[in-house]
Every structure is written in C-alpha cells, then in structure tokens.
C-alpha cells in the first residue's frame, strides 16, 4: 500500500498531526496498535487524573467544552475526550495494527505492520514517550524476597502484598502512588532524587495558569539555555484532584511517609541511600521559589496585585537531620519496591539509524536528524515546555506538519514517465 505520510500512533499527538495533514490535503494513514488513545486506556494506574486543568485540555479544533473547567480529567474522561476527537476528525485510521518495522527504502520509508506494509515519503512517530519503564540497573540486585513493580505495571494499592513499600522516585508518578499506597495501610518510604516541587494553586490560580501567563509553558526548545537538561527535567510534583490539593514531600511527611535519599546501590541485601537528600530538597525549594518570584514580579509589573491573593511562600521541605543511609531489604522491612523512576519510548521497531549511543532519538524540535521526512511528536520538551501535555500537541503538530509539507514540496520528484509522483 502506498501513501504520502504514515503516522504511527493514534493518541492525542498522532490525531493532532492527522488534523493538520488533512487541512493541507496530505494523503496519510494513522496506524494504531490498539484502539484510539491506547496508552491512556491500558497503561495508567486507576486513580490517575491529568496534571493540567480541564480548561487547558484541548486539541486542534476541539477545545474543552465541559462543565468543570477547573477540574482534572480522570483516565476514562481522557479516553472519552480523545475518542470524541477521533470521531470528529474521522481520520484515515487503521486500529489493531502493530508496526513491526520502519526502514528506509531509498528516499522513502517502508512501514511493516502485522496487517500489511506501507510505502510512504514521510513518517511521523507519535507512538508515545512513556512506552517502557526506565528502571535503574541496580534493580537486578534486589533480593528475590522483595517484589519489584514498575509504575507502568502498577494499577492500585490492593494489588501489592501487605507490608512496607519503598517507592523509588518522587516526581508526579512517585508522589501520587506513594500517597495512595501509604493510605492503603502499607507503610511507605520514598527514595528522593532530583525532583521539581510546585504548588497546585498559587495566589488563587492553578500553577499551569501562571506558567502560561509568565511565558514558561511556551518557552521553545531553541530558546532555552540547555535543551538537553530541560528535556530531562522530571515531571513536577503535581496531582489533579477535585479539591486541588498540593501534594509535596511535606504532605507525605505529615501522613507518616518516611523520606530517604536517592537509591544509590543495593549490596548484601541492603539498599544504600545517598547522603545528599538535604541538597536535593533545598534545590527543589529554591527552584520553586524562583518561579513564584517570577510570578510575583509579573503580577507587579502588570499592576495586578489587587486581582490576586497576596504573595506568600510555602514551608521549606522538612528533612530529618540524619536520614537513614541504608534499608534492610531482606529482613521483611520492605515487601515491595515500586520503581517510579521514569519512562522511555520504545523504538525497538525503528530500523533506521537515528538513535544515539544511549538509545535516544536525535532530533531538532521533532525533526529527526539524519533521516529527512521523519518526524517525532509527543516527547518531553520536544519543541516547547508544554510539549508533553495534551494541550501541547497542537502547536507542535502544526509546526511539524508545516516542516513536513515544505519537505514534500521540495522533494516532489518527476518520475521517469514524466508524471509527478
């Protein structure tokens, strides 16, 4: 089968790309291994809600139009929203079609699937950024008596054995899972590495509202000092709840959750923790306060001080003076280790040499390096700080389809029979 562009993945990103391709009348097909919004449907824990408020959650041509603009969508609501978007677009969609290989065929691409092969001039990888758990190699040294669960497999606390749980990682995933597991009666210790602390609400407004206002959300990949570092910034400690609560380390401490340093090693059945916990927490506090200062300055510069609640600062993260440096994993002190250590994309089907020595895709704002006609969407800070959010898909998809269209136009060859292909 032949088409101009193959889009791999029918999540919010792939559908947004399809929207702009259709607007330019670029012939394409969207391939999806499962159903629309497959990862949102099948790879998230039960209680998860979006980290962004509903009023922000929109896709090109479909802004949020529900009754709860300040709420946060549950996963079934997200799936409904994206399903509705797919029905609205009615894209050329092939569901239950798994891509087995993408390879080069001259200047074209061959996309091999379990339901036939496609030949195309350009390909858009919209296959998600969170396909696989990023688990540190030291996990292999865990004693067999301890269950090892990744945040990708985790669904609900009751699936875990009774007993204590070590949650490794305190970004959005870790901090949310730690709270509900501890609430379930399984005492939690959190291992705290680099993290980003943010309040849910500041001066009466959602932090995402402020980040839009002060221009942080729209910061571009070619504007920041250090894009490699910016792309590695962990997902801020946020949770979407009806009561708009702030879930930070102090919240967990008040619940009785214990904090230890970053998990640095496992030796002789003992987990060894970094002694750098104070610094990690201090840095997160300082960075949060810098953002709050930016917000306060923006409010003052715009003469809006009377429009919002007064400025204030949050309590610094409380860290016990000498946090434990080791935990016995064999004595029954810990029954389960839950790895909330991040995610990575799966490129096992990508047979084009576009990955670096660490398996990461080389790209400039989603334009894949060294493989003309190949594009990527839906990665952390792909083109903008908001790239990894649903509402970030629109601007990225528009930019990339602009680039793709220009590429096709420049390439349009004349075939030997004199016809434009």
């Amino acid at each position, binding site marked *: 089968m032949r088409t101009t562009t193959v889009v791999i993945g029918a999540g919010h990103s792939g559908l947004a790309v399809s929207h702009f391709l259709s607007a330019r009348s670029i012939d394409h097909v969207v391939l999806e291994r499962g159903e629309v919004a497959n990862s949102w449907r099948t790879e998230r824990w039960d209680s998860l809600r979006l980290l962004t408020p509903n009023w922000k959650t929109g896709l090109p041509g479909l802004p949020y139009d529900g009754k709860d603009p300040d709420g946060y969508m549950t996963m079934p609501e997200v799936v409904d929203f994206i399903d509705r978007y797919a029905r609205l677009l009615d894209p050329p969609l092939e569901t239950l079609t798994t891509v087995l290989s993408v390879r080069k065929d001259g200047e074209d691409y061959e996309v091999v699937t379990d339901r036939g092969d496609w030949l195309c001039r350009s390909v858009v990888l919209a296959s998600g950024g969170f396909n696989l758990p990023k688990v540190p190699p030291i996990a292999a040294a865990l004693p067999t008596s301890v269950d090892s669960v990744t945040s990708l497999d985790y669904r609900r606390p009751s699936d875990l054995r009774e007993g204590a749980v070590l949650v490794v990682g305190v970004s959005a995933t870790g901090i949310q899972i730690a709270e509900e597991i501890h609430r379930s009666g399984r005492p939690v210790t959190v291992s705290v590495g680099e993290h980003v602390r943010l309040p849910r609400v500041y001066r009466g407004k959602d932090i995402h509202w402020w980040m839009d206002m002060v221009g942080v959300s729209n910061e571009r990949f070619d504007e920041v000092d250090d894009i490699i570092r910016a792309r590695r910034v962990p997902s801020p400690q946020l949770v979407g709840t009806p009561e708009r609560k702030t879930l930070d380390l102090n919240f967990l401490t008040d619940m009785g959750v214990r904090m230890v340093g970053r998990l640095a090693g496992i030796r002789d059945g003992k987990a060894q923790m970094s*002694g*750098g916990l104070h*610094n990690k927490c201090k840095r997160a506090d300082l960075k949060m306060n810098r953002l709050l200062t930016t917000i306060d300055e923006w409010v003052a510069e715009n003469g809006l001080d009377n429009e919002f609640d007064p400025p204030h600062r949050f309590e610094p993260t409380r860290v016990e003076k000498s946090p434990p440096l080791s935990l016995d994993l064999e004595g029954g002190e810990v029954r389960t280790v839950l790895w909330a250590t991040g995610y990575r994309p799966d490129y096992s089907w990508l047979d084009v040499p576009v990955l670096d020595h660490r398996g990461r895709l080389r790209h400039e704002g989603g334009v894949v390096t060294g493989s003309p006609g190949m594009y990527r969407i839906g990665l952390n800070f792909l083109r903008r700080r908001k790239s990894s959010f649903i509402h970030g898909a629109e601007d990225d998809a528009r930019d990339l389809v602009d680039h793709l269209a220009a590429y096709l136009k420049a390439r349009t060859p004349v075939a030997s029979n004199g016809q434009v292909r």
Partner: protein
Amino acid sequence: MSKGEINGVDTAHLLFARGVVGDAPAAGDYTWRASNEWVHGTHSRTRIDGYFGLGEERAHKSNYEFEADHPLEFNAKDNAATPVEIVLAGLASCLTAGVAAVAENREIKLRSVKATLEADMNIGGILGADPDVRNGFNDVRVNYEIDADGAGQADLEALVAQSQKISAVFDIMTNPTNVSVSVS
C-alpha cells in the same frame, strides 16, 4: 584570564569540553592516580604525578605531595593532618571550585568565598570498641560565607546548592563506591 572572565574560571572552555564529552562519551573517561609510601609510625606520604584523561596520559604542571599522620592522643607524632581531615580538604576544594564555576556562569562576581567544615565521627568504630559504630563520618557539615556583587541570599544558596550537584567529592562522600584493595 581570558576576556570576559570575572572569577577566573574559563566556563566557555568547560562548556566546550561538555559538548565534546557528550558527543564522544569515552573521551570523558579519566583515571586518577596516587602513590603512597609509609614513612614511620602512622606517618605516610602520598605523591600525585600523573593521570589519564581525554584519551591520553597526562602530567600535572609539577608533582604534588601530601603528608598524613595522626594526632598525639593516638600516641602518634602529629607530623601532618589526619587522612580524614584531608578528605574534608578534598570536599571543601571541590565545592569551592564549583561555587566559582557556577558564579562565573551566572555572572556573579565573587569577592570572597570562605567555607568552614565539620565532620563528626565516633572513634569507637576504628578502635573496634563498638561493632555498631561505623568507622567513618556520621555527619558532615559545611558552611559557606560568600561576599559577592549583585547576588542576594537566595542566589548564594542556589550557587552553593548547584555546586553540590556538580561536585565529584560530594558525590563520592554521599554515594557508595566500589573500592578494591589488592596486594602484589
């Protein structure tokens, strides 16, 4: 000092080196070396002459020597600082270098940077008096006093926090490291 430096740290060069090492990770492999010789009693002398880095053997501008001994109450001669104090020297020098480099990068002009360090240790561990007491430090405290142009308290705290993040010795002291000792 090249043009534009305010604290004498060539950050442009450091950023260049980061790019090189990022593109060719093996270029970043360094091996540091020291040789040590017993003098008398608990007194010994460590010599630093060369190391491996950026793909080749390299030499310092000159050789450096560090003496170490133990204090009088251990019935030693106290000819030099104790090894654990030299560890503190390593931590302080590493963090201070980091403060200067980060300040350079953030265009903060330093007037003076002073650090005081304290490390607590119970010698019951090394004396074998109590198996539950560890040999090494059980707490290390560092305090910085920094006088700088155009930097508030939060900026200085951020400077010191960032210097910990990029410090080799801070990492060495806070994270476990495999150490193997052999006899030939």
